[in-house]
């Protein structure tokens, strides 16, 4: 679609990124933006933001914005070029570690890693939750909605899809 687009280079860049993406997709978002918007000018800033938003509205992991970037650039081949790299660490390193962890569940090193790092993981996720809460809320009403949601989910077993649907409608109606 674009003369400047080199799918092989795009594939290799995303592949390299995923191997350093310890800490998850949000850790590599700035670099993907730098690559496709600034360095190679494949997308404008506005297109990047719109594609990212569309993918966030879709069900599934938030990381699927990378698929949409590839699709927008070069159709099915582009979608494959940006999505397959995402799978590579999971199907090599994760399977290998999973295999060893299942085979030797009582090995001292796995026990120490699991119990030593679990608190750090939970602390980091709490950090993500509070950073997200501050990023999406601009006034006290937003914070009330977020905190009320957390309290409801902890106490009631309602299906939270209703809450998300209500949030989407409230957003379109300009209430939150």
């Amino acid at each position, binding site marked *: 679609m674009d003369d400047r687009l080199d799918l092989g280079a795009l594939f290799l860049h995303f592949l390299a990124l995923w191997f350093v993406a*310890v800490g998850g997709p949000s850790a590599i978002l700035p670099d993907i933006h730098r690559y496709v918007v600034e360095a190679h000018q494949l997308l404008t800033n506005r297109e990047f933001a719109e594609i990212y938003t569309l993918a966030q*509205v879709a069900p599934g*992991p938030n990381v699927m914005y990378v698929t949409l970037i590839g699709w927008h650039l070069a159709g099915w081949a582009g979608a494959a070029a940006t999505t397959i790299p995402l799978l590579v660490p999971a199907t090599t390193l994760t399977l290998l570690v999973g295999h060893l962890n299942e085979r030797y569940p009582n090995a001292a090193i796995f026990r120490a890693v699991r119990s030593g*790092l679990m608190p750090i993981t939970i602390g980091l996720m709490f950090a993500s939750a509070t950073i997200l809460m501050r990023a999406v809320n601009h006034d006290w009403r937003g914070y009330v909605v977020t905190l009320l949601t957390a309290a409801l989910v902890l106490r009631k077993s309602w299906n939270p899809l209703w809450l998300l649907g209500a949030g989407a409608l409230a957003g379109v109606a300009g209430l939150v």
Partner: protein
Amino acid sequence: MQQAEPPKPYLSLWELFVTFSRITLSSFGGALFWSRRGLVERKRWLSEREFAELLTLGQLLPGPNVLNLTVLVGYRFAGWSGAAVSVAGYLGWPFLVVIGMGLAYQHYGALPEVQQALAGMSKIAAGLLLATVIKLAMVLPRRVRPWLFGILAFVGVGVLRWPLLWVVGALAPCAVFLAWRAKD
């Protein structure tokens, strides 16, 4: 994982595929909440602690943490092919959905309503993530050391906003060493 635990069930590939398809197709605004709800609360395949442990491994490895968790769960219950069908269910549907959205975007552009709906949904999604983390924190032993490391990680990344790699690079070796010494 003590020896006394009951043997893990062996699940059919179809059951893994359907479960991860359901999880991913409900995952609006982040997949962590829905994975925990599906695997711990609805299916009861994992205890709270097992979920937190597999998530920790998934977080430690490169790539999206919930995708890695999906691989680990699929492998645990049905081996290599279990991991494959779990990933197919977890990523296959969203792949098709976002491409459908890509087609719509090429024809209509992004409507302002999409942005507004996302603004509303993201406030709810932040609450779902917060509730998930609070539930996960309940599995930490009521002792000083785990909570100290959890709080240090939170303060370093969430309050002081130091780079993730520095914080984890400083805390993780100490935490693993102390857990190894204490035989946790």
